[in-house]
Each structure stands twice: as C-alpha cells, then as structure tokens.
C-alpha cells in the first residue's frame, strides 16, 4: 500500500520547493464532519507567475492529480487565477484538494498555460480568457467558449473595473467603445481584440 501524504506535508513540500517564489505562505484547512469526525483537508498554494508551471509539475510528484477547474477573481490591481486539483483521487478517503494559484498585474495580464502538463485544462483556460481578460500563453485553443459573439470583445464579465460588464447589463446592443451595435465582433471568435488583452494603465481611469 502506498503512503498518502497529508495536507500539511503537501503544503510543506511546496513551501520548501518554492521558497522565495511564493506569493503567500501555503496554508491548509482541515475539516472534520459526521459522527466519526473523519478528517479531510484542502491546501492553498500561491506561486509567482514565473514558477507557476513548475508548481503544477511539482504537483505531479503526488499521485494522480485530478484537475477540476480554474477559478479567478479580480483583486483590484491584480488578477488571480486559481487551479483546483485533487491529489490522491480514487484513493477511498485520502484525497486532498490542492489549489495552486498565481497572480498577474493588470498592466501585464497574461499567465502561462498548464495545457502541456494537464491536457484537460483547455476548456477552463478558454473560459478564464473570456471571463477575466487574462491571456493564457500557449493555450491550445484560442476561441471563446461560453460567450457568444453578442458580447463585445473587450468586456469581461468577472472584471470589477472598467472592462467589466456593468454597461452591458441593460443595453447589450451598445458597443462600449461607442459606435456599432457590438454584436458582430471578430471573425475568429478570439476573446481579445487584435492587440491582445486589455491593459490597465496604473493610476489611469482609461
């Protein structure tokens, strides 16, 4: 029988490996439910963008990482993308949810793709591109996934800044840039305008 590592051991392993490249210290949350109080835990690891792919590779040293989804949020000046995994899946009671995340500044919104390491991330990476306006370098399929071409390029529903969808809430037909009806956007359904993802200048209101 193989040895299963606990959440704390996984967090410690990331802490040692990526010392100096961590955005915040990896932390573990452990919960106990039910009558028998069986423990299960989740680990949050936030790594700087440069070492993000390494962190994803490091996760592979634990048995059977199962990728579920990437979530993301607008933190104000930065955009955070979190990839949620489970290690020791199919282990009957030893699974640990590991979330590895990275951040990128809004004036340089791109992060590396994990699709070479985990082939199943492509749909969720496509979703992050169109919903957060963050470019994924090396994505396997650059088209939009969920948003139809009725949503203008340059509007990202999860952004809480001027690229957010607030102006679309009532008037879908108005292009935020002014003219046009905004419904026919770009032929290849790319989530970004020709120049790449929108860049927020520091201090500017755009």
């Amino acid at each position, binding site marked *: 029988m193989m040895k299963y590592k606990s959440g704390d051991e996984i967090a410690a392993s990331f802490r040692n490996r990526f010392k100096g490249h961590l955005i915040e210290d990896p932390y573990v949350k452990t919960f106990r439910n*039910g*009558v028998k109080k069986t423990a299960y835990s989740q680990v949050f690891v936030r790594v700087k963008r440069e070492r993000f792919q390494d962190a994803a590779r490091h996760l592979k040293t634990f048995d059977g990482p199962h990728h579920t989804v990437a979530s993301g*949020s607008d933190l104000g000046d930065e955009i955070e993308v979190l990839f949620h995994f489970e290690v020791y899946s199919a282990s*009957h009671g030893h*699974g640990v949810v590991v979330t590895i995340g990275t951040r990128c500044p809004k004036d340089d919104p791109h992060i590396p793709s994990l699709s070479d390491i985990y082939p199943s991330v492509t*749909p969720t990476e496509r979703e992050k591109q169109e919903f957060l306006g963050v470019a994924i370098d090396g994505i396997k399929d650059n088209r939009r996934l969920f948003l139809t071409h009725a*949503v203008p390029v340059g509007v990202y*529903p999860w952004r809480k800044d001027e690229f957010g969808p607030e102006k679309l809430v009532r008037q879908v037909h108005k292009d935020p840039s002014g003219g046009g009806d905004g419904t026919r956007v770009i032929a290849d359904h790319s989530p970004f305008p020709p120049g790449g993802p929108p860049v927020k200048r520091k201090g500017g209101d755009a």
Partner: protein
Amino acid sequence: MAEAPPYPLNIGPIHPALKEPTQFKFVIDGEHIRETDFQPGFNHRGVEYLGMKRNPLQVLHLAERVCGICSAAHQYVFCRAVEHAADIVPTERGDYLRAIVAELERIHSHLLWAGVAGHELGFDSILHYTWKVREDVQDILEILCGNRVNYAYYIFGGVRRDISKEDIAKCRKILSNYRKIEDTVLSIFFSDPTIIHRTKDVGVLTHENAVKLCACGPLTRGAGVKKDIRFDWPHGAYGDMMDDFKVVTPETMGYHATGDVFSQIVVRIGELFESVRMTEWLLDNMPSGPITSEPNLSALLMAKLRMAEGEGVARVEAPRGEDIHYVRLKKNKMEIDSWKIRVPTYGNIMSWLTMFKDQQIADIPIIIASIDPCIGCMDRVTLVRDGSQAEVDWKVLHDMSIEKSRRLMR
C-alpha cells in the same frame, strides 16, 4: 446535397437529441463521424456574476437554480464552500439529513437519466417506466423538503427542516418499494438485446483517457477509475459510511469496465440502488441533536457571514459527477467577493469529444446523453439581443405573447 463526403453535420443548437441548447459540429462520411467540435454558450445565464451581487443567503437559492436536476448538489456544495470560508461547522444531524437529500436526489437523477437514455435509443417505454418509478422518490423529496424540484433544504450549518417519525416511516416504505423493483430494473437494462446492441462498444472512454482528461462522475467509474468524491474526500456524513459502502464500478456489478455506454448504464443503475441502501443506512444511523448550528437566520447573515473573511473550496459528488464551488468572502461585505462553479458536464467536455471518435451518426444521441449532460448548468449567461433590425426585440415578443393570450381568452 451538393457537397461530396465528408460533409459537415451540425447537431444543435436545437435538436431532438439535445435536451438543452448546445451545438456539436461533426464532419461525417456516410454514417461515420470523422471530426467533432463542440460549441457551448447558448444558455449562458451569468449566474456567477449575479452571485457576486448578492449575499450568501440569497446566493444559496441562486446556486440551487444553476441546475434543476442536481439542485440539491449545488446547494450542498455552495453551503460547504461558504462554511469552509467562514468556519461554520455543521451539526452531525444536519450532515446526515444533507446526505439523505443528496442521495435521494441521486436516485431521482439516475432514474431520469435512464429514461432519457432510453428515449435517445428510441425506447420510449423505458422513459415512461423510469419516470413513473421516479415519482416515488420525488414524493419523498416533497415530503422532506416541501417542493419537488428546488428543495431549499440546505442552510449554512445544517438543514432547514427536521424529519419527523411519520416521514421516516413513509421514506422507508417508498425505499423498500425500490428494493422490490431492483431486479426488474436491472434485467430491463442489462439484458435487453436491443439496448445491448446499441450501447456495447459505443462511445468508449478508455481508462487511460479517463485519467488523463480528468473525467468525473459515473463516466469515469464506467471506465474503471474509482473516483468518487463521496469517498475520496470524505465530507459530511460520507466519512462515516466509508467502511460500509464502496465505489460502484462495473466490476462491482459483475461486468467488465470497458468505458462504453453500457458500462455507464451499469454504473448508474448500480449506483441508484446503492443510494437506496445508503439512504436506509443514513436513516438507521442518524444521530440526534440540532439540525443546524445557527438557527437564527438574521444572526447568521448579519454576524457570521458578514464578518467572515477567507476562501473555501468544496466538492460534492453530484449525480452527474464532481461538483466544485470556490467561494471567497470579504469582511464587512455582504456580497460574495468571488464565486466559481464547476459542474460535472464542464469537466467532461474533453472526454466527451474523444468518445465520438469513429462512431456512427446513430450513436450521437446516446453518446451525448451518456455523460448525462447538463448544458444549463454548464453555461450560465442569458443574453437578450435587441437593437438589430433583423432580430426580434424582446418587447415585440412580449407584446406578441400578450396579444396571443388575449386572443386565446376570447
């Protein structure tokens, strides 16, 4: 007609094989599929965006409406995610009642799926049979939760209603009815020659692909991978059940795990009756105590949730597979700061596309149905397009419908 084969064949956005709008683009050569592409997004409702404008108690009932079939699963997982973020501990009895509703929902969802799969195969009688049988479990859910579809049963810290003695008796009676029809259902699905002909070696997802593409739910168990979040990540009452119950795979039912549609039928029908046994186990072993750790809703909302700061991930084995929510709460902010839903169908897209390889057109509906797709869960924004002259404005549609109603009333 003009094109020489291979020619494109679009299934969707509206097609009898699809119960919800989505689009498949196939390149076919005679009866054979050469290439497949998939375009979701026809039913996107922006649930996550809506959620970021509401407080957790409101979102609880929005999360429920992400999907009609696995609504309890979405409430359950959202509850857990907020509890993880806000450090609320559910009560023991609450955990058990939650698991009961989740398992009952699995029974109803798998019966529903079995019917839909039968319909896709042209076997409508199975649809009528399973849906007739499904009414019973819907009745239990109605007794327990109040309504048949959106249960509104979960709350942070536990559940909203307790189960009474007579309700337990009613549940047991209905569950024993399910035990009685078990053999009939198994033989209808596992030994019908036409069903076997249509599902064996169709839409194969190999073990290797299931692991590599991170498939989830009955799909992956059909391929022989024992992934089941109820047991892998033993949350709630499932931690107590780990010794008594095992993951259902075709092997445990006495079949080979080939990963084809037939294996998935085996897994789902097997799980259905496993869930019946699980519910009975939960009813037998239910601990006493309060059903929720914070019965006062206003205190829960204004104190605990408003003051909470943190993030949480929760996963639940919905009937269709793994359901995961990520929630981040900020202090002194009523609204949820960040929310991400991932539904089983989303996780299975990549596996789905490999399943169409070298299959026939006739296999398309059952392969689509085999992962139990829930496009409505996966897509989450609706866009009302207006302004363009070629398209009908919603106001015009609204006026037209009012006019029609008036005409009918005459």
